[in-house]
């Protein structure tokens, strides 16, 4: 493969490219789907593709093809050159040079190669059984188990020449509990790992079953203003996208980030520390280099509530006169964009139990279903699997109520972060508690 990529770069240079990049990926994937309390379908795919990016006199061209024969790659290069010749010049277009190579251990399991569709089928069935046997009122709407083994290659005309293997297993289960006419809130639980031995569908299924059963028999409540304790999944649904958008240099440059101009300023209570960390192998977004071949690193973005930096790829970094943070993202079928890798919120000092016991009047939210505006931070939606807390004890599940507010304001009222964290694919998140949140009864 490396030879093919070097061939592509040579071809591009011969056709007039000042700089060229070739990125390739090959993967083998198997997946089992669960639907309506039954396994549904087995799916597998093998795929490989290459993306060619060229710069011709400051103009960029991009062509991708999922056929790795030499003649197809040659055609792709000449098309990329043709595209560059009709694209406007942009002085910020550039490819990175070699950065210090880093080898990340712990993202590839040698046993993954022999993990077969039949193994996936067994585990999916086990997850379904575990949820159903926890309590007969549990009803699984859908779920899946996915195993993906892939290799990524990246080479450019500045001497970058990298490759890496990774294995990713992920699974999910979603549904409700039903008792006569009482239907609980929907719940979703997810899990993921890089190693076969760490696939734990049982814990995920049990947590799902426990959550839906405990939200049966909800009672209506009056509207109130109080504390909100979000589970890691709810953090992912309500808070994470707003922060990831706001710390993205592309959003800052397009003037859609609320954090523009706020480096060094306080954007949250001092309990919040956010890192973007592709080197944390617990997260499924871990890898040693980014979409352009820049080495990954740990970027502390918000430290004790103070905004420290934005996330950059080479293009946006050049625009701001800074260095790439290793956040070029995207697949082989797209030129690099900017995004988070593993979104990590540092654990706090309190246990989850302590966070609950300190609540005078508030709500634990298992999931949030609604709209979040990443630009201005406004959110409004429905509380799923809500439980009322008074004087430090959980009272009862509540019927769906509306919750609305603003993420940026909520971050300033953050008054608790748990020690316990959960891995949600490429996010590692604790439980977080906020004050002054309005809940409106329907």
């Amino acid at each position, binding site marked *: 493969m490396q030879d093919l990529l070097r061939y592509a770069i040579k071809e591009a240079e011969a056709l007039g490219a000042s700089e060229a990049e070739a990125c390739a990926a090959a993967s083998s994937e198997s997946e089992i789907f669960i639907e309506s309390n*039954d*396994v*549904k379908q087995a799916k597998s*795919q093998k795929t490989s593709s290459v993306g060619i990016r060229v710069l011709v006199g400051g103009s960029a061209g991009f062509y991708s093809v*999922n056929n790795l024969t030499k003649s197809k790659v040659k055609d792709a290069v000449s098309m990329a050159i043709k595209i560059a010749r009709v694209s406007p010049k942009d002085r910020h277009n550039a490819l990175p040079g070699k950065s210090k190579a880093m080898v990340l251990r712990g993202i590839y399991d040698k046993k993954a190669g022999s993990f077969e569709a039949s193994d996936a089928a067994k585990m999916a069935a086990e997850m379904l059984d575990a949820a159903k046997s926890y309590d007969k009122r549990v009803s699984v709407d859908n779920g899946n188990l996915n195993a993906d083994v892939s290799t990524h290659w990246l080479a450019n005309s500045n001497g970058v020449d990298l490759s890496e293997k990774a294995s990713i297993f992920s699974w999910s289960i979603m549904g409700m509990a039903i008792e006569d006419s009482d239907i609980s809130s929907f719940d979703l639980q997810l899990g993921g790992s890089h190693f076969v031995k760490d696939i734990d569908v049982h814990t995920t299924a049990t947590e799902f079953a426990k959550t839906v059963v405990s939200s049966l028999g909800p009672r209506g409540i009056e509207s109130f203003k109080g504390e909100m304790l979000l589970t890691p999944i709810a953090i992912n649904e309500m808070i994470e996208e707003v922060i990831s958008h706001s710390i993205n240099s592309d959003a800052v440059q*397009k003037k859609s980030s609320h954090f523009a101009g706020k480096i060094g300023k306080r954007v949250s209570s001092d309990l919040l520390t956010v890192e973007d960390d592709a080197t944390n192998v617990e997260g499924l977004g871990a890898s040693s280099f980014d979409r352009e071949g820049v080495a990954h690193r740990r970027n502390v973005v918000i430290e004790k509530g103070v905004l420290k930096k934005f996330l950059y790829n080479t293009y946006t970094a050049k625009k701001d006169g800074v260095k790439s943070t290793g956040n070029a993202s995207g697949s082989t079928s797209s030129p690099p964009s900017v995004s988070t890798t593993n979104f990590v919120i540092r654990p706090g000092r309190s246990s989850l139990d302590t966070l609950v016991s300190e609540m005078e009047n508030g709500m634990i939210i298992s999931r949030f279903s609604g709209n979040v505006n990443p630009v201005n931070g406004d959110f409004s939606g429905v509380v799923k699997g809500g439980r009322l807390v008074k004087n430090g004890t959980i009272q009862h599940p509540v019927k769906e109520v509306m919750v609305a507010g603003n993420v940026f304001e909520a971050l300033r009222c953050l008054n608790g972060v748990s020690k316990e964290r959960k891995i949600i694919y490429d996010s590692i998140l604790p439980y977080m508690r906020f004050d002054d949140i309005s809940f409106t009864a329907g």
Partner: protein
Amino acid sequence: MNLMSNDGHVIDNLRSMISSSSGARYVEARYQARLATEVNFVNGELDRIRVVENSGCGIRVLVDGCWGFSSTNNLSLLKESLGHAISAARVLAQAKKKKVKGLAESKMLTGIFRTSANGSVSDIDIEQKVQVAREGEKAARSNRAVKAASCTYRETLDHKAIVSSDGADSEIYDSKPEFNVSAIAKRGGQSATAHEGVGVTGGWSDLFKKSHLEYAVTASERAAKLLDAKHVSGIRTTVILDPAMVGLLSHEAIGHTVEADFVLSGSVVKDKIGQQVASELVTLVDSGKSEIASNAGGTIIVDDEGVAAGRTAIIEKGILKSFLHNRESALVFDTESTGNARAFQYNDEPLIRMRNTFIEPGTDKLADMIKETKRGYVVKGARNGQADANGEFMFGAEEVYLVENGEVRELMKGASISGNAFDVLKSVDMVGNEFQYDIGTGYCGKFQPAKVDGGGPYIRCAALIGGLQ
């Protein structure tokens, strides 16, 4: 850049693989080569340009009452891929409780099909595609109040071959270009966004019946006007919905509830075939053809099980007539497939999806609909929305005009329309006589995307209108 140059004999490979396969009750192989082009300008700069070629074969099998699906981009590995699909389905079948009983008998459409296109987009140089996006973005900033703009040209060219052990044997050539522009006007702390766009099944001339600059200038002017518009106050009232809103309502709030897989998991309409669910003025259709008007964006001719994708009346004169089926659900409901099995790319399995979903035109003139409205709103410019399994929906509308005493008054700020879709359809008392498709730039998401369209005439009905920030 000829997509179709190297894949002429693919269908023969699929045929021979299927005729020599054993061990599965049903085998379906679908080759798909896709060439996708995208050019996007934002705020005066090229934001993204790319061309992506993606081809391969997806194989679906039914073994021991369980589905298996396998795909590969390497056509020399078809047999191996078939083997994967069969063995995985066989293993999973052991855990499966409710077996797939079979597939409904269907008339397969065989032969070679091309969606009609005036001016093939393959003959248009990439330079011209860059030009329309660049000029469109610039024109979207033509009004001085507009501070940010974006413009995208996108096209998808497909060559498909579908062969199955039940007699499917067809090839399809398809072309779907689209053009989108948005403008954001700002003053002080206020901002207002306007979108314009068009998406068709067809060629370059079908896409640009109106000039790209006209879309852009319209968006620019509207964004500026919306800046000064007043808010709508929340009220249940008479609304006159434009073709795009009618399309969105038909697709999102009604269409999904009648997808047979959704019906089987307990949709609100499950026991309502033969019952009145809408005003007798309403005939609501989903079709794989471009009925009534040409170049509808969701046109497919043949579905991805090889079944003719014709017209299905979901609601006829107010009576619920049919659900939307693939061959599996059709057998369960003891009926015929309606040709709604669709897959997005070669590596996606076919699911029950809509195509062009619309309300048929009636006899009323728009001018009369307005004249006979004492107080209400004309609601235009469908934006994204949400709909639940029970028909409850909330959609955003970009352009809302107050109507008083039979006359159109001022433009109001964007608003939301909500209600229960079936209640709204029951309240329909006037149906316009002019028809248009107008959501062809949209994609529907259900595990995988699908290109769909929708539309209708203007209709008058009652719904809840509310302010939207």
